[in-house]
């Protein structure tokens, strides 16, 4: 699928759906599946490589976990699946598993000579999609491609669920069932999400999404609710039963909460290393108003951190700092992740900030300055942050998946809001802002934003309504194609806040950006690991785009933004489908996949900008935003451009940021900032 021109004609649902359903998987698939195999034993490694080659897979082997991680980081979209040994001298296989899940969201298969139940269970809880006992036979390897397909499907599904998929989401449904049946996903966020989806999916799409079985989907808003409840109880004292009561979500079971809580705790622990930085950030988040102050500081912090970690490109950092720190536009105020959990999403904060900063830059130069317009009230800031968040969410979401799913969802929501930013800015400022501003608000706002965003696309804030009104609002925000700001305004994000945000002047341009981002985030909302699979199957690329937020970037005033049509869901899938991805897929994952898919498409220039954007966004998110450079996708870019027009947006954004530095090679290797890096 090579989008001839960018504007929005994404291959949409049909293609993606097709892919999702598995019917149109590229002909040669699974041949050519790009596998990264990690094992410290040279004998096993070579044998595995030989076997995988015999399966016609493309194999890269490495004997050290660190090398594997850097390989994965360098080629964000370079691999489809990872197989790793459990016992390795330099790093525990499970730790690697977690890292990969968070950063790249790729399916990971664990293997070991140890077949004890405990070890296998550990694999499940850490998110492995499968566990192989050594000696691994070739028969076992022949079918590993199923995990790749499944993951993509799930992401797709999640996107749809978040309401982002306007068309063709139905197609997804059938896939879900298939996916769900795979026990392999249990460990993933996605799978758990899926499960949760089934259980509590009601609000959004009741039958929907393809769940035949009730699964609980931890949408952004739901997660926000969860986080709010946990915060209320105190993380130490938060027990599933009480959380469940506080959340008061129909259809949610104690088990859902319990497993989510477990993940959340892991996430927190992970963050604890970073909490120092972020805590401050979080705090700021919590209080929208107050936050700005701290936010800026945090931003600085984050920015620094991010910059240091390499995730934040220096420029971005500068930008962010300038923008965010200055909090001019309230960006800082908007705690991206709305995460109440201060610490939890601390890294998110940085991201958001970063995003804000970025956005600020971007917007400043262009009408897009959504943030500028934003009145100091939290709202606008929130909105701004939302935008940023959206962007960052896009990025972040990716990362956040595992633990950060929460944040991501928040971010996503924020992103959504942001994307809608367009909408938000204009009309609602309030809507959006609410997202970010109300940090105090339980994560819900984030979730809402994210969730809403997702929904907007579909127009049904099912989720949102269920959980938060805000969500609904957000959705409205999202749904609108950039042009519609009104909707956003109304609703949603209120996370607590502030309708004031409405001023977020996200001028269309920004929205687009945001939207694209949000889109991606929207996609994320539902699936934490939406970003996982950005497989480059080209065919699917565009499907993702259609999913989720369809941002009609065209509406935005900014020329740059042009067509963001990137619906998060779509974006996400983009990653998926486009193997060719060169950039698209990868990028998507980075941003949360959806967001930037459009960006990629736009072609190199744009891609670069997008990259920048992304990087910025990504940087922001400590959550290991998988920043996938889109730049590599020249062809891809075309795709995106056509569909999303994101590139315009991105370019606009980036330009603003970079001062039109052009394709800033996103050389962020976010690993620096990823949670993992932070010593916990």
């Amino acid at each position, binding site marked *: 699928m090579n989008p001839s021109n960018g504007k929005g004609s994404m291959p949409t649902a049909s293609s993606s759906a097709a892919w999702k359903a598995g019917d149109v998987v590229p002909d040669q698939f699974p041949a050519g599946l790009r596998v990264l195999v990690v094992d410290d034993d040279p*004998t*096993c490694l070579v044998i595995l490589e*030989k076997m995988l080659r*015999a399966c016609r897979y493309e194999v890269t082997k490495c004997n050290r976990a660190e090398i594997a991680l850097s390989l994965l980081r360098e080629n964000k979209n370079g691999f489809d699946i990872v197989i790793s040994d459990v*016992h390795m001298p330099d790093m525990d296989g499970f730790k690697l598993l977690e890292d990969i899940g968070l950063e790249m969201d790729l399916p990971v298969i664990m293997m*070991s*000579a140890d077949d004890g139940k405990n070890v296998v269970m550990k694999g499940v809880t850490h998110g492995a999609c499968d566990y192989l006992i050594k*000696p691994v*036979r070739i028969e076992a390897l022949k079918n590993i491609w199923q995990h790749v397909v499944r993951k993509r499907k799930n992401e797709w599904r999640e996107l749809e669920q978040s309401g982002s998929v306007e068309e063709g989401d139905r197609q997804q449904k059938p896939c879900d069932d298939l996916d769900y049946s795979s026990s392999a996903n249990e460990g993933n966020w996605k799978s758990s999400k899926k499960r949760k989806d089934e259980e509590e999916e009601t609000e959004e799409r009741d039958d929907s999404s393809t769940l035949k079985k009730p699964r609980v989907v931890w949408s952004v808003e739901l997660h926000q609710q969860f986080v709010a409840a946990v915060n209320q109880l105190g993380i130490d004292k938060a027990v599933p039963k009480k959380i469940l009561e506080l959340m008061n979500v129909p259809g949610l079971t104690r088990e859902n909460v319990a497993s989510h809580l477990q993940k959340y705790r892991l996430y927190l622990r992970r963050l604890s290393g970073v909490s120092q930085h972020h805590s401050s950030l979080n705090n700021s988040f919590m209080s929208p108003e107050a936050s700005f102050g701290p936010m800026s500081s945090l931003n600085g912090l984050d920015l620094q951190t991010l910059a240091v970690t390499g995730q934040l490109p220096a420029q971005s950092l500068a930008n962010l700092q300038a923008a965010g720190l200055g909090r001019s536009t309230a960006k800082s105020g908007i705690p991206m992740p709305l995460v109440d959990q201060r610490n939890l999403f601390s890294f998110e904060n940085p991201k958001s900030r970063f995003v804000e900063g970025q956005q600020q830059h971007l917007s400043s130069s262009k009408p897009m300055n959504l943030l500028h317009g934003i009145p100091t009230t939290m709202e606008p800031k929130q909105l701004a942050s939302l935008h940023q968040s959206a962007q960052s969410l896009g990025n972040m979401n990716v990362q956040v998946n595992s633990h950060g799913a929460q944040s991501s969802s928040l971010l996503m929501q924020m992103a959504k809001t942001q994307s809608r930013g367009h909408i938000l800015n204009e009309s609602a400022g309030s809507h959006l802002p609410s997202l970010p501003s109300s940090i105090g608000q339980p994560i819900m706002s984030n979730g809402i934003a994210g969730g809403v965003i997702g929904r907007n696309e579909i127009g049904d804030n099912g989720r949102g309504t269920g959980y938060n009104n805000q969500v609904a609002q957000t959705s409205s925000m999202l749904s609108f194609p950039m042009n519609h700001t009104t909707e956003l305004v109304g609703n949603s994000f209120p996370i607590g806040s502030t309708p004031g945000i409405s001023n977020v002047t996200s001028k269309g341009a920004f929205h687009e950006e945001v939207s694209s981002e949000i889109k991606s985030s929207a996609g994320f909302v539902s699936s934490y690991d939406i970003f996982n699979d950005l497989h480059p199957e080209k065919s699917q690329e565009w499907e993702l785009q259609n999913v989720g937020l369809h941002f009609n970037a065209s509406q935005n005033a900014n020329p740059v933004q042009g067509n963001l049509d990137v619906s998060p869901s779509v974006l996400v899938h983009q990653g998926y489908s486009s193997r060719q991805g060169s950039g698209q897929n990868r990028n998507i994952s980075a941003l949360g996949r959806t967001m930037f898919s459009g960006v990629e498409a736009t072609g190199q220039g744009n891609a670069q900008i997008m990259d920048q954007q992304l990087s910025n966004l990504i940087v922001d998110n400590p959550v290991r935003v998988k920043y996938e450079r889109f730049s590599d996708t020249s062809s891809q870019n075309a795709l995106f451009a056509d569909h999303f027009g994101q590139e315009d947006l991105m370019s606009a954004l980036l330009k603003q940021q970079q001062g039109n530095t052009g394709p800033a090679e996103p050389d962020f290797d976010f690993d620096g900032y990823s949670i993992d890096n932070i010593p916990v």
Partner: protein
Amino acid sequence: MDKNHLQHQLDMKRSLLDQGYLDEQFIQLEELEDDDNPNFVEEMVTTFYANSARLLQNIEQALGSRPIDFTKLDNYMHQFKGSSSSIGATRVQKECTLFMEYCEAANAEGCIRTFRQVKQEHASLKTKLEDYFKLARQGGPSAGGQAGR
């Protein structure tokens, strides 16, 4: 190809399989051989023995230290076992499993005793495989691969 030779090789392999020295994994490795990698199995076995010698040394050292760190021993042996399993060294694996049970029980003597058995099986298999490969090489270029089929 000398039919007798091939037959001889097949018989040897069958014998190794029957006696539990090797298992299905070894057969799978042979099936992976192709024209590009005609001596794949032999190469793998060579790699295995080179690497496993190092692992055995680690275990030896750990066994010699006082107090014995059973966790470390267990880890080393786990690695060794995984490696052995990759070439289908069944008997060696069994001894490894036994060793690890003793580790769990923190039974030093059991570990030391079992370790001797591990080394024994390890060495014994090496000899047999060397003979096998020699035979395979003598049988002709594709002897090894064919024997596997």
